């Protein structure tokens, strides 16, 4: 240790131990990986779940309407890696769906570009 650790544990670093205690030390989510802007939607209401950590209930509450992974992490004020592990667990339990960000395929992609362009011009 020899004091080197002090360089990293400053105020800016934020809480380090607790977030990963929530994931029981895991840093990778279960199952198929998902993108930063993948869309999360709860399948159940938070009160319908009998046993869940407060953070999981918060995620269920925030995802009653579709919400991206990064917006969830920002709203929940939890590190992205922690959110991902918790999302993996919730998906594994069938409590949420995680959909890929954009409709796949060239035509759908062009349509998205067109819609975003139209929207930006109108801002």
């Amino acid at each position, binding site marked *: 240790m020899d004091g080197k650790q002090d360089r990293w544990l400053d105020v800016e670093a934020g809480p380090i131990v607790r977030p990963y205690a929530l994931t029981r030390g895991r840093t990778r989510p279960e199952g198929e990986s998902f993108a930063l802007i993948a869309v999360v939607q709860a399948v159940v209401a938070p009160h319908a779940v009998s046993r869940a950590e407060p953070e999981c209930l918060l995620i269920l509450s925030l995802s009653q309407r579709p919400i991206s992974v990064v917006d969830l992490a920002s709203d929940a004020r939890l590190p992205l890696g922690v959110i991902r592990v918790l999302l993996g667990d919730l998906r594994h339990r069938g409590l949420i*769906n995680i959909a890929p960000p954009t409709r796949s395929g060239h035509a759908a992609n062009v349509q998205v570009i067109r819609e975003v362009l139209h929207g930006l011009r109108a801002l």
Partner: protein
Amino acid sequence: MGYEPSDSGPARPHLTTTKIIVAGGFGVGKTTMVSAVSEIRPLLTEEQLTERSVGVDDVALVEQKTTTTVAMDFGRITIRDDLVLYLFGTPGQDRFWFMWDEMSFGALGAVVLADTRQLATCFPSIDYFEERDIPFLVAVNCFPDTGSHHPDDIAIALDLDPGVPVLLCDVRRPESAREVFVRLLEYLLARSGELEHTHAP
């Protein structure tokens, strides 16, 4: 489609998300540009501590965590209730390069922000997007003391492939920053052969 709702589940989520990357050297104005056009949202992420960051002996200690939390921002533009564009600024510091792959995966394209006083700082970004075939344009942020430059000269100086747009901008002005993204999207449409009308100057 890659997503099928379960038999008893709710309907498919009605939210489409997409993203654009904003890259460039440290201090070139990426954050200013993103905040000029979008809602800035804070995000906590993690940095893997590598041998470059800490001594090998430290990593060998089991109780020594190998990640630390890093704060970053991203931009969010709500195009419609069911369509959101995210803007991710690439970290300017070398030790955050590991995040680039994840950030750029699935991006529509990228804006490489350049500063003529230190043009070389955008070379790594250009190399990165060229190697991965991610379409990009170069936006030259005109600081008050940069003098005048012609986009063609900058394209030559950067050794860009023909057709890669180069434009001048002032990222502090929202309309100028927005125009950069509009031009990128028009370029993407043109590349896909789908542009129906050219942009009126």
